[in-house]
């Protein structure tokens, strides 16, 4: 039975009191209140009885420990899955890199395409755009307010950070995470790694973080 909720005193504090999660000031507050409200002692006892400190209750009902063989098998399975995940990731990136390299080679080898959209008689693909707009207008670029940084190590100067595509809802798309291969990602002086996406996410791409000019 829960004691009726008193005015200006949250009974939930009894849980935190029983678990030792309150500050000294709040503990004193609870103790003063309990001294005048003995009926709440039963609730406090309940909180203590079902708290993690009650080894008489939780000891006997502890989950049965897996055998040593079960632990080893589980650990080995995790290791296998991790190796597989890493192989798949690197294979995907290597394949993507190969495609990008091929595309880059073709760009140099093949002649540049003619721009047809400067003519007032616009082709169908350019319907809706004003004459001369293609290649003449600057692309809108994101301001710092448009960029959402997903990961940024504390000492990020010169490191790689990962952010959300600032124009992902727009028409401009440079590359997806799955289209980028990292050749070398290292730690900073404190030995910390920058966040590097482990799996390709379509709407997330890496960004280079350059140190700010002093």
């Amino acid at each position, binding site marked *: 039975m829960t004691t009726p909720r008193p005015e200006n005193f949250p009974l939930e504090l009894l849980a935190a009191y029983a678990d030792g999660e309150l500050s000294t000031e709040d503990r004193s507050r609870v103790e003063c209140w309990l001294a005048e409200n003995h009926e709440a002692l039963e609730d406090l006892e309940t909180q203590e009885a079902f708290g993690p400190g009650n080894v008489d209750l939780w000891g006997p009902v502890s989950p049965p420990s897996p055998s040593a063989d079960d632990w080893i098998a*589980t*650990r080995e399975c995790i290791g296998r899955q991790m190796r597989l995940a890493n192989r798949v990731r690197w294979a995907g990136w290597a394949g993507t890199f190969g495609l990008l390299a091929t595309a880059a080679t073709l760009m140099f080898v093949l002649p540049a395409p003619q721009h047809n959209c400067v003519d007032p008689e616009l082709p169908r693909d350019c319907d809706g755009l004003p004459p001369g707009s293609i290649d003449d207008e600057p692309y809108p670029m994101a301001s710092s307010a448009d960029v959402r940084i*997903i990961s940024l190590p504390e000492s990020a100067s010169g490191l790689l950070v*990962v952010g959300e595509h600032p124009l992902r809802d727009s028409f401009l798309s440079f590359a997806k995470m799955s289209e980028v291969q990292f050749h070398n990602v290292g730690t900073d002086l404190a030995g910390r790694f920058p966040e590097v996406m482990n799996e390709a996410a379509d709407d997330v791409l890496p960004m280079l973080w350059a140190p700010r000019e002093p």
Partner: protein
Amino acid sequence: MRPVTAQASPDGEDVLVARAARGDGAALDELFSRHRDHAYRVAYRLLGNSEDALDALQEGFIKALTHLHGFERRSSFKTWLLRVVSNAALDLGRQRRRRERLSVEASNRATSESGQTPEHSDPCREAEESDLRSAVAEALMMLPESQRRTFILHVDGGMSYREVADTMGISIGTVMSRLFYARQKLRGILASRVQA
């Protein structure tokens, strides 16, 4: 193979995690031995049997290490891991709902299969403990999922209120409230079994 002992402090866990994610077996060993017990206990309480708990633990470890972009490093890797493991356990529990009725039997079977025998050999006491374990498991299953998860993360995951709050994305006040009412309900359910 690089040594991991130098990174054994909690301060170096970020590096350890990054190495494990890249397939460093020694780093994975260290992380696994650090966190497996709490992760297993949480999964077991949410699922009610050892076999499923190990499945959830395995899936949770893999997901936690391969989805590090979701780990914002505002809290510890343990917090991130238990979040993923508890999610995996709840998903598994939903998929295998039909097993819930058998959880009591599975729990008892797991004890005998594991080869773990209690220090005492009093059959009456063993039976009492098994009975109490079943009663606690059933009582936990009667709590709303949010309360149950909060309670289990705190009691079996060994987490502080702050860690539970970070794991579940809720405020400390909500943690406090859920724990208070979860315990009040457990007392109502287990009144005859537990001396308050």
